[in-house]
């Protein structure tokens, strides 16, 4: 049930993205890609938190929006300053995504093992 919902929302998003006629303006595309990375980080963080049972919808939503906006803004600021600030966002969010995925994987494996033993 759970993975199905996610797969469905991804497929739906892809479809909508292709159907709508708009494209991201080229000059903005770099910033948007950093923002997407930040959003992905928030998403995976949210998933991890829900497995942890520490999920808070307000924290999640605010993090999702603010992180994305801030990351995009930092990339823009970095370009204006002639400094590749977006690299900082890429490194930080990239690392966090991998960490969170690793934690989630461990939790899921442990849950799986527990269920096996109970049986």
């Amino acid at each position, binding site marked *: 049930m759970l993975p199905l919902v996610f797969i469905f929302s991804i497929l739906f998003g892809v479809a909508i993205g292709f159907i709508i006629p708009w494209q991201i303006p*080229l*000059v903005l*595309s*770099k910033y948007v890609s950093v923002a997407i990375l930040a959003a992905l980080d928030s998403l995976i963080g949210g998933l991890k938190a829900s497995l942890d049972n520490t999920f808070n919808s307000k924290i999640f939503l605010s993090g999702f929006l603010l992180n994305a906006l801030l990351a995009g803004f930092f990339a823009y*600021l970095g370009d*204006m*300053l*002639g400094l590749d600030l977006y690299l900082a966002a890429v490194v930080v969010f990239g690392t966090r995504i991998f960490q969170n995925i690793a934690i989630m994987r461990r939790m899921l494996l442990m849950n799986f093992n527990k269920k096996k033993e109970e049986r």
Partner: protein
Amino acid sequence: MRNIIFFFLVLSIITGLLIGVQLKNSVSKIDLSAMGDLDILFLWREVEKSTEELQKENNGLKNEIKKLENEISFDEDTTALLKKREDLKTKAGFGTMIGTGLVVTLADSNQKVRERDDPYFYLIHDSYLRAVVNVLKSGGARGISIGSERLNIGSKITCVGKVIMVDGKRIAPPYEIKAIGDPVSLANIIRTSSFFRMLEHYRDNFGIQLGVKILPLIELPPSQESLNLELFEVLP
């Protein structure tokens, strides 16, 4: 407490000042070499798009001016004068031209480059297009276009990497060179031209694509270049 706020204020002002100075430096001019690969591609696309829009605006203005002039032309004399100017412009490449003529089509070879062969022979180069235009002119072509671009007297055919450009506009292969003129003499000159014999040789050996076709009706659009008539005086 007050002290802390004061400190923060001073510190933020300094930071803001630094950022501001830096911004002024880098925004005023775009340093191309400092930008990454993709950024330049993006910038190029943006500039190209805005150039095209500008071109469209200018074309619109030209049409409006033409309309206004036609409204103003009080009598037959003025109309004749306007027509004379239009004919001259068309001769220079800045007016629509309709007539019979032929079309030469050139395209890169789609054969694989054999070992020991120079890939140079498998491609169409800007110099080929210049040479074709030269040959067509010697056959009395009155108007020529390459792809969508009409040539004027001062047209330039250049290339950036593998992309051929006419008057700064990219032309996509296959390259269609249309010429208005007497089809018989144009075809004759092509048959006898040593340059076309060389192209035929390349076609047979390396597979570049070459075609010549007579067309009963060709319409050439006006050149998109701006006609610059400053810089010189006409002597009687």
